[in-house]
């Protein structure tokens, strides 16, 4: 049985007058100890998927489908059970570490927070000792436990968030744009740290980013989302190098190769904007931006189909070269 099993997940936000479909039927699974990257542009629904996994979406979001964490359905769980599951089975490394830390509390106490929430019998001193040990695991000196968030650099704060995610020995860590706000060197350090920690402790990872290069360096598997759907899914290296879906190829091309003169001035990325979830085109949602769209793309749903061993893509012309 997989550690995480997302089946036909839908998330619909109730905006004032209209229902906004942010996620439209996503099916993904992660095995224990494996890592999955979810890529896509802003607004493609990747963060909604992440938040839905711990039922953290606002009350205006209607969630359909099933999310099984270790076989338990998150959607139907009682609030008490859900609270126990949060962080102890799956924890989150949030996007903005500055905002995710309480500015007026020392970070040691904040790392200790989940420990004491989940095991109220733990004394304050024991929890703080464990917090210091966690800080050492993420490469920060133990005395940093007494620092306040504003006394740390951006990279250090993100390390604190990683330490906090590890606090309850979860089996899954969800990293939602965890390194987006950092500069590239720090980003690389934090990514190394995350890869190292999850490999050593056998934790599964779901990493969400718009940056394919980050996902390529950390994840075994990659799912590319577009307009609330997974349009391609497969082993990371193959998906990045030889995308079967034209959107994946566009996304991969959007990142220039440093030092490669041939990549200079080459057409990059995908022209146009992602469609509004309120006005999705018929047929394939990518059709208006697709360089290889054909008439058939305008009709019906384009299902995710196997295109090779372990690879799926939602495209009628999967694998054909983009002109």
């Amino acid at each position, binding site marked *: 049985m997989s550690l995480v099993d997302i089946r036909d997940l839908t998330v619909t936000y109730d905006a004032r007058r209209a229902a906004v479909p942010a996620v439209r039927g996503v099916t993904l699974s992660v095995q224990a100890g494996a890592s999955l990257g979810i890529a896509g542009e802003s607004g493609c629904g990747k963060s909604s998927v992440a938040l839905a996994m711990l039922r*953290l979406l606002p009350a205006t979001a209607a969630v359909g489908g099933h999310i099984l964490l270790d076989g338990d359905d998150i959607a139907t769980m009682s609030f008490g059970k859900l609270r126990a599951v*949060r962080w102890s089975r799956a924890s989150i490394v*949030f996007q903005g570490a500055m905002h*995710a830390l309480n*500015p*007026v*509390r020392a970070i040691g106490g904040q790392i200790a927070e989940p420990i004491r*929430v*989940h095991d109220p019998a733990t004394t304050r001193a024991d929890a703080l000792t464990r917090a210091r040990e966690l800080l050492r695991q993420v490469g920060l000196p133990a005395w940093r436990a007494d620092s306040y968030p504003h006394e740390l650099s951006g990279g250090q704060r993100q390390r604190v968030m990683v330490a906090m995610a590890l606090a309850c020995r979860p089996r899954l860590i969800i990293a939602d744009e965890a390194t987006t706000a950092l500069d590239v060197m720090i980003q690389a350090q934090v990514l190394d740290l995350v890869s190292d920690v999850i490999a050593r402790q056998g934790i599964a990872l779901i990493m969400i980013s718009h940056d394919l290069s980050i996902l390529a360096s950390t994840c075994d598997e990659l799912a590319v989302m577009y307009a609330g759907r997974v349009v391609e899914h497969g082993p990371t290296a193959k998906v990045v190098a030889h995308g079967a879906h034209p959107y994946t190829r566009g996304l991969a091309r959007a990142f220039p190769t440093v030092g490669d003169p041939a990549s200079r001035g080459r057409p990059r990325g995908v022209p146009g904007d992602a469609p509004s979830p309120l006005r999705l085109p018929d047929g394939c949602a990518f059709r208006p931006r697709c360089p290889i769209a054909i008439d058939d793309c305008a009709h019906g749903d384009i299902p995710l189909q196997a295109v090779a061993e372990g690879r799926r893509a939602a495209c009628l012309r999967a694998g054909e070269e983009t002109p």
Partner: protein
Amino acid sequence: MTATAIRWAHRRTRAADAWRQYRAQRAGMAGLIVLAAVTILAIAAPLVADADSLDPTQAPGHRFEPPGARFWLGTDDVGRSVLTLTIYGARMSLLVGVTATVLSVLIGAVVGLVAGHFARATGWVLMRLTDWFLVLPQLVLAIALAVMLGPSAATIIIAIALTSWASTARLVRSATLAVESRGYLERARALGGGHWHLITRHVTGAVAPLIFASATLQVASAILAEATLSFLGLGDPAVVSWGTILSHANDSGAVSYGAWWYVIPPGVLIVAVVAAFTLCGRAVEAIVNPRLREAR
């Protein structure tokens, strides 16, 4: 240094910082000095004035003696020293003012926090209740309550608290809503924290300075309300407070007799203390909310 030592050092620097900012505000300092003087006088009352002389049967002087060497502020209609009355009156006025405020801010803070945290149905119901208390004329409601509960100091405290919590509730609710949208509350929810955990660990701390500032301002109106209710005869007639002194002065015809010394001391002190609390409250507010600070 140990962890707690470092944390205490942090707190000390922060407190010293806040104190420095406070000291820079002249009006706030003036208010604080007045308050300190009145509070010390109230606490030290038994040392400077004889409590027994408050008993009308043991009054040391004659009726309406003007201020002089023996009675600096003259005597009242039964011959008690107005100075002694005023000093002992400070105890009751301050006690009722502060207790009523603590009670009122407590009710207001709980209602505000709950309404802000459970912003949907519960919050809506609580806010309509708050609105109701906000639009009711405060004095009329307090008089009705005091009449219902019978004259005593506790009555006055309860009447003031029950009629003045609504504005605190509104203030705390809006601050709570602002804090609730912060990232660290989402994190606290994600790590399995329940409502109690979120409110006590994260929201209350962030809202507390605001509550404190509003409480300081509210003491002023509570003291004024106490004086009003006592003057109207709803307090315990046996206990001396500035309000009851004024009430007695009114009943005994001190004004038509021309005994100005019976009316002016408690009156001036009420104004002084109310003004002092307001000045202190404004100064604290300016520290809590830097936008209120004057540009220099």
